[in-house]
């Protein structure tokens, strides 16, 4: 007991002495090193998010003072908007496709490509290439692929002996068409995260299991996938938040059309809030999106916590 108290006392003594020493020595560096980032982050990231909340309770066209308080009217307008439901539904479809198709595809490729050899390296680079490509370029390339007159899709139709629809102008087909582009664009990113996880598994673990006669797919199922749980957790998080914020790739492909059937939450925000300078309406959309992302993040922390407990 005595030794503990003296230990603590000595500890605080050192801390006090060190703090005084630090104050003199570290004040100037801190004043140079910290404020630029913190101010930039606060002014251009945090305050705009707060502003979005403020705007959402007013009717404002962006000019003059903000005075016309309307309560929750903007939120009601957003929720009752004809196309908001579609935008939310589409964003949720993107989330679902990302989780159910993209991530399993990424995992399938990662399991094969986590070894080291030249041909494997080439494949890995190819699969990762679309992720590095600008969304706008990816969107335009696929707009060509889907073009009903000169693209690749009608050629596929010829080969199959059917006539393909103009998918980007078709209210039903436009969504699967966009999902295919999203999978093409992003599965390589998740694959790389999984590969990084797989490569960090100690070789002895896999080797020992193999010597015990465990089959290859049992090793994958019972050893490899459980051991890269943290990589999967990261990947799922990126997939969800990325899907909720999807914008760039929709604009070149469909611009939200045909007749507003392919909007996501962010293209909806752009089309009906920003382009029309309805800041209250746009603010309300931003707040709803923000809340959705916070819920995901918080729910995620709980799941993450549970995963790490196990």
């Amino acid at each position: 007991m005595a030794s503990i108290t003296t230990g603590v006392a000595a500890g605080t003594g050192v801390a006090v002495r060190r703090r005084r020493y630090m104050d003199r020595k570290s004040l100037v560096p801190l004043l140079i090193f910290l404020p630029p980032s913190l101010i930039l982050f606060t002014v251009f990231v945090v305050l705009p998010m707060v502003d979005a909340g403020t705007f959402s309770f007013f009717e404002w066209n962006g000019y003059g003072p903000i005075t016309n308080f309307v309560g929750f009217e903007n939120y009601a307008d957003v929720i009752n908007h004809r196309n908001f439901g579609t935008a939310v539904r589409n964003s949720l479809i993107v989330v679902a496709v990302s989780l159910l198709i993209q991530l399993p595809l990424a995992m399938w490729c990662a399991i094969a490509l986590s070894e080291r050899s030249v041909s494997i390296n080439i494949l890995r680079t190819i699969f990762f290439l679309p992720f590095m490509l600008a969304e706008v370029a990816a969107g335009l390339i696929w707009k060509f692929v889907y073009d009903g007159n000169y693209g690749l899709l009608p050629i596929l139709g010829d080969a199959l002996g059917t006539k393909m629809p103009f998918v980007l102008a078709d209210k039903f087909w436009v969504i699967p068409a966009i999902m295919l582009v999203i999978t093409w664009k992003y599965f390589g990113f998740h694959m790389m995260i999984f590969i990084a996880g797989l490569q960090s598994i100690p070789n002895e673990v896999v080797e020992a299991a193999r010597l015990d006669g465990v089959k290859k797919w049992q090793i994958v199922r019972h050893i490899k996938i459980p051991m890269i749980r943290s990589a999967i957790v990261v990947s799922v998080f990126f997939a969800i938040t990325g899907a909720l914020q999807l914008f760039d790739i929709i604009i070149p492909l469909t611009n939200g059309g045909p007749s507003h059937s392919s909007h996501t939450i962010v293209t909806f925000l752009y089309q009906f809030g920003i382009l029309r300078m309805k800041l209250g309406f746009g603010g309300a959309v931003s707040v709803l999106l923000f809340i959705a992302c916070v819920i995901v993040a918080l729910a995620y922390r709980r799941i993450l916590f549970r995963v790490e407990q196990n």
Partner: protein
Amino acid sequence: MATASRKRRPAISAFQWITLLVVAAFVIVPFYTTALGGFKEIGELRVNPFGLPQSWDPARFAEIIGGPRYVPSLLNSLLVALGSVVLSTLLASMTAFAFAHIKFFGSRFLMSYLMLGLLFPSATAILPLFIKMRDLGLLDSHVGIIIAQVAFSISFSVLLFYNFFKELPKELIDAARMDNCGYIRIYWYVTLPLCLPIIATVGVFNFVGSWNSFLLPLIVLNSDANYTWPLGIMQFQGQYGSDWPRILAFLTLSILPAIAFFLLAQRYVISGLTGGAVKG
């Protein structure tokens, strides 16, 4: 060595190889047809989609390179990307240094505050950001885009630097302190020279992010002369409608520098992904 690795390598089954090749074809075919499409006539696209073009006439490419849009928009993007890289590298490394090596009251709190930027969606801030930039007179300027981009990427950049700085041997900093070296000099003469790999990673990340960025320039820029290439290519596509050979030529020329850069820099991207995402 070679035999050892071959023995250790478990076989990838034929079925796996087939699926990999199918996926590879799925990834490559759009690139391949885009690259060749710029040389073809519009009718040729339909009758000869996968074959080589009848002539390798570079007229379209020459016209685009000599045209008023391609080179200026690429230069604008380059300027913005380099500005973002320099500013974010400098600010993020300084901030991460303070968090990693200087003990001060509120350090953990400020770090957590900055890390909120990793969780929260940047798209939600875009509308008020537009108003803010208008009020600050930053609309239609490259400086405005650079500042906003750095602000949005600073959390991730600080995290990457912080993880790296924490790994540096503490004795190094302590030794420099003993020699009566101030923190600013330690940062500049001791830490920075040791962290060239992480500077490369953060730099590549910010460069690619800025080079590809679309939403922010779309909202901030409004004069043709200032357009970055994603805006330029959208405008070009709007102008030429479905003159696909011309658009495909423009696309090919626009993504070629990015692909070359990616092939050179991919290991930095991958180490950033793993260093920031998996370990962090």
